[in-house]
């Protein structure tokens, strides 16, 4: 039971974090006309608009640099460069997972 409560809390925190990331993407990348509340957690962020399904954001490499900078500014985490960054930038969910992981790793040090 205790474990369930902890898992619940983690899930709530992650939901909040994902919403915060969505708000950040919409405001800082000027995604006018997008509502953070209706962005899909798992839709692909990058690639041709529409290529990653109807909910894909169609971001490009310049956005990736901007998102990496924003992650550092807002959440204090450094996104690695190059191929390592690819899975992190996949979706809002993967960004949230990375922020939690990076914060946790820092807490344990």
């Amino acid at each position, binding site marked *: 039971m205790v474990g369930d409560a902890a898992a619940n809390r983690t899930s709530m925190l992650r939901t909040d974090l994902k919403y915060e990331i969505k708000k950040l993407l919409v405001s800082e990348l000027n*995604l*006018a006309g997008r509502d953070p509340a209706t962005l899909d957690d798992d839709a692909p962020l990058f690639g041709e608009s529409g290529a990653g399904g109807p909910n894909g954001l169609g971001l*490009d*490499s*310049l*956005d990736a*640099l901007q998102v990496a*900078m924003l992650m*550092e*500014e807002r959440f204090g985490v450094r996104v690695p460069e190059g191929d390592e960054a690819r899975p992190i930038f996949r979706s809002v969910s993967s960004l949230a997972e990375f922020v939690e992981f990076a914060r946790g790793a820092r807490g344990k040090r």
Partner: protein
Amino acid sequence: MIAVTGLGAVTALGGSAVETWERLLRGDRAFREISLFAADGYRSRIVGEVAGVVSRQTGGDISRTSEIGLAAAREALECAGLARDVVGTSVPWAGLRVGLVMGGSTAGMFETESILSVLIRPEGTVDPVIREQALCRMLSHPLSAPTDRLARELGPFARVRSLSSACSSGSNAIIVGAAWLELDLVDAVVCGAADALCKVTMSGFHALSALDPNGARPFDKNRKGLTLGEGAGFLVLERVEAARTRGARVICTLRGWASRSEAHHITNPDASGQAPARAIEAALTRAGFTVADIDYVNAHGTGTPLNDPMETTALARVFGDDLSRVPVSSCKGQIGHTLAAAGAIEATLTAMSIDKGEVPPTGGLVDPDPACSLHHVRTAGKRTIRAALSNSFGFGGMDSVLLFGHALAAVSANGQVPWQPARRRVVITRVATLTPAGLLDGVEVSRLPLLPPSGEAIDADVLGGLDADRARRLDRTSRIATVVARKALAGVVAEDAGVILGSAFGAVDATSAFMRRLAEKGPRLVSPADFPSLVPSSPAGHVSIYLGLKGPAMVVADLATSGECAVTHGFELVRAGEMDRAVVVAVEERSVIVEQVLSVLFGAPTSGATTARREGAAAILLSSEQAARASGSPILAEIEDVVAWAGDEANPGQRTLARPPEAGSVVVVGAPNDAVDEYIARSSWAGCPRVVCSDHAGSHEAVGGIAVAVASAMIARGEATSALCVGSARGSGYALLLREPLG
């Protein structure tokens, strides 16, 4: 045919073209840690910095950029044996009409960026004395400031122009110089570009992850980006016959040139290489050459992961199997990427390679990338070069190519017919204006609605009318420019059209915000997405990308007459056949900092007065008469003649228009001032009815563009038979004569 008779360069390798050339051949890499400012936290501190930049004067519009440019331009004029003061005559340049075209992007940024980080702070939080001193130093900031400094020191010049197309600015300055010669506007022209290092470009390219920590290695498998450099390059061009008459040595010839836009992305090149390939093909066609005539390519070769394979693809598209025969090298592994100056410096070095019969190497290249399969040059080698290309590609996809030929090789081995210069009639087919009073197009433009008494800004709803996703990277100036250009085009497909955009100050407030962020948060948190908007050519790039316009694209600036300057520039390039159609945009955004600077320096009226500085824009679609008739496009007016002058003493006779007014002629003025009044009073047009646009459109640097749009609409409506549009400031000016289209 156009001769190159003078060369000058200042680079990290040396203070002259000769010294740069010698060290370039030796393979020296002039990279070292930057000394101009602390560069802690940057991806790389290594730069190509010019040693020993000394100015006898400081302050005013003098900057590191202007002084580097001055040295290179002086060398080029001396090399050409062109002297302003000639023994035995008091006439400057012994009566020759000499022009100056200068490209740039950073201008006085190095001098003003620390000031800008202060100016963005609210008034009252900065010592007023410090604030006023800071505002006075802003004179060096405009794109045109280094050009004005050169014109003052080296002139008087018959014609002067400042332009930017980011990293192809230097090449475009040479293209404009060539067009002036073909139009017989000048007898000789000194053309080139200068850019100095500064924190804005260092932090911007750092944020874009584009700096190689170990120094640029163009075409290498392990390249990680570019190394920033600084410098200047200038060429003296004149007609071959004129050079021979004067007894000047012809170093080589400028045989072909072309500029094309990718209309793809504000920072990333289009990997297909289509636009550069089209530019190379157009340059070859103009010269009457084929790839078989080309013996060397001086590549753009920045060393970024994306540029080098793209450039290889572009060359392969044009050269095919011949590519393996042709040596290709980049100078950027030795002098760095000098941004706006790159095209001019590399044109200088390409000219020297032809003249000396020697090919310079690609410094830093160790292990060639298989994706850059080219005939690389590892060490300098002797070679007869009949003709060579110099490539330059800029932010926003502005790609320019120059084709130089040997002084003696008169014709192509393959017998193609070179392009014949012609002066085309230029007409205005569409217009639109955007002011705080609204967005108008076509003949409606001449209704001249009154400005709303409150609100100096353009209505937000009007600016919101673009596709949200595609317009999300547009800063305010780019958004205003795109809205007005789109309105003027009204859905006309104009893929071939160029974009000529006039803007005096660019994004000053955005630069200020960028610098404040850098000062407060450090280089790691600089915004990569904000950086491209600070490049002066960026609004032209955005218009080209949003509207899919793939002709030549560039920004011109001339302070209060930037609007008239843009129309003049577009007119010249269409007249000379550089493009069939040009979307000319004049745009100025409201800027708290610009208004403060103007009020401190010139005592400009503050807001509230009827002539308060507002923001506004005009778009004018210019077309060759032939292209307009072929497409069945209605013609509003024809531009019959343009007179441009620079500096008080420069050839006053040239300011006279060819003809007097007739019944129904009007004078349309953007913003009146003493210089404008004096010009009109001295002309035969003094008695004509006068329309003043600033009464309706507000006072700003783009209002001259609005004047041309209004004049076109008045003629199209039958309210005028012809119109004279005059703009003048600080001793220079433009007079544009519009009339009813023939037939």
